[in-house]
């Protein structure tokens, strides 16, 4: 076997794979930018859509997306952080409750998003009477994103050095004091990553929102009003509206730029937190 070892071919294959991985996002960005950039103007961002979205802008969708994301994060951050802290700090890994919660999270993170959409529709829209609304959409998205956020945050908290816990125990620091001043700042980079992944997943989600937040293109007047998210707009323009491809690409470009900006912001925040 060793005689057949060809370092040049091996390194060529490894380089090829690495370059392919690096090229893939560039190709995607290129594709979106090529079709979308000419249509991405200030009026596109600030105008209402017209002609079923073929022309006009995406302002109501931007507003709806921010509201839906806001509701989603308001639910996800406290519940997710609390659950991750409980799993990493308050309970032994072999405890039956921890195992059961862990198993539930793993199962939930594998559930298709359409199921969360139907669940959200049944619980939030119908049972709780919230109807097709931004609140229904945001809460349904939160259900979908929570398992991912909890697991990623839990790993970030667990990777915080055990020496900090040891010192905190020996100095008899309060649990809240330790968590707020030492643990969360020291795991902030991992928590920021968890947040970015969760936001990315939430922003990209379509199936959940069609069933819960609705897809009307008008400007939402309140949180109980329905609204169309950017991802739903992209889906609708590219699948249901002939001639809507260019505006779909421009909307996708806005979404990508938004996610990149969130990445940069979260990275800076975590760096500031750690110092």
């Amino acid at each position: 076997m060793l005689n057949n070892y060809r370092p040049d071919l091996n390194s060529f294959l490894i380089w090829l794979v690495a370059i392919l991985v690096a090229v893939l996002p560039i190709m995607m960005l290129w594709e979106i930018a090529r079709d979308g950039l000419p249509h991405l103007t200030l009026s596109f961002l600030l105008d209402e859509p017209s002609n079923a979205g073929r022309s006009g802008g995406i302002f109501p969708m931007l507003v709806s997306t921010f509201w839906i994301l806001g509701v989603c994060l308001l639910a996800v951050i406290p519940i997710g952080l609390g659950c991750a802290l409980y799993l990493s700090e308050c309970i032994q890994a072999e405890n039956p409750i921890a195992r059961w919660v862990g198993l539930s999270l793993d199962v939930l993170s594998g559930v298709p998003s359409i199921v969360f959409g139907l669940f959200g529709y049944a619980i939030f829209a119908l049972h709780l009477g919230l109807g097709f609304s931004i609140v229904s959409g945001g809460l349904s998205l939160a259900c979908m994103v929570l398992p991912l956020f909890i697991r990623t945050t839990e790993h970030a908290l667990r990777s915080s050095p055990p020496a900090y816990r040891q010192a905190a125990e020996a100095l008899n620091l309060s649990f809240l004091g330790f968590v707020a001043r030492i643990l969360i700042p020291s795991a902030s980079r991992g928590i920021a990553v968890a947040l970015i992944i969760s936001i990315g997943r939430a922003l990209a989600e379509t199936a959940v929102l069609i069933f819960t937040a609705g897809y009307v293109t008008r400007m939402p007047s309140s949180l109980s009003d329905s609204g169309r998210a950017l991802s739903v707009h992209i889906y609708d323009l590219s699948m249901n509206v002939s001639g809507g491809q260019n505006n779909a690409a421009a909307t996708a470009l806005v979404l990508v730029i938004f996610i990149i900006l969130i990445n940069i912001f979260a990275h800076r925040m975590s760096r500031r937190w750690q110092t």
Partner: protein
Amino acid sequence: MFKYMRQSNEIEQIFTTINTSAISISIKNVDVRYNNVAVIEGVNLDVPAGQVTALVGPSGCGKSSLLTCINRMTDTVAHCQVSGEILVGSDNILHTKTDLGILRRKVGMVFQQPNPFPLSIFENIRFPLKEHGMRDEKSISEIVETVLTQVGLWDEVKDRLKTNALQLSGGQQQRLCIARCLALKPEVILFDEPCSALDPVSSTTVEKLIKGLTPDYTVLMVTHNLAQARRIADHVAVCWMQSGAGCIIESGDTESIFERSIHPITQAFCKGDQG
């Protein structure tokens, strides 16, 4: 409100008065079990007040486990049971009603690996003081200066108290940890191989510092380094594995253990023939 203020004043009095009350420790017939397997069995040891006592012995004979019983850090280890009696002053700290907050303020601990928090040098000392109820910033600043001077770090760091403590050298970090421990005005300080992660120069500094803590503090120190025990300890206790569990085979003042030990294992261990 008044109750709180009175408590706060009492707390500040505790931290600002000079500690003059080193207390003795008496360990009586202590067993430590992990998952019902004994790691320490029938240990008896008297640690005199205001002196340095070294626990020496080969790896795995339960020295560190014994040390962590004294500030009940064993409570944080799953399936660990401690039985017997440990008198710190006149209180049996193994009693279930022992207030861990008071115990861990009374019995400080310094670990093998320096474990400063990822905060500034100043905050590393201020944060535990605040956690223990100290509110007056002027007194806090005075304590910070006093303890940093006591560990010989003040002149090195007085101009950069806001620097992250993790940027200090290993030896400086360890001295900061000792200062953090001293800030809480303990009566006993436990050292778990405090120099084993340090270079020889830093080790010498820390050794001198430990020796200088007497007679104000009672020091119990675990060390692998016999020469170190001989240099700084007033008393030495030799731990050994017998029938699968650790025990103390001989203890006494340093000179008698190294020059006139009775137990053949101690004689061989001190000569370097065994262990």
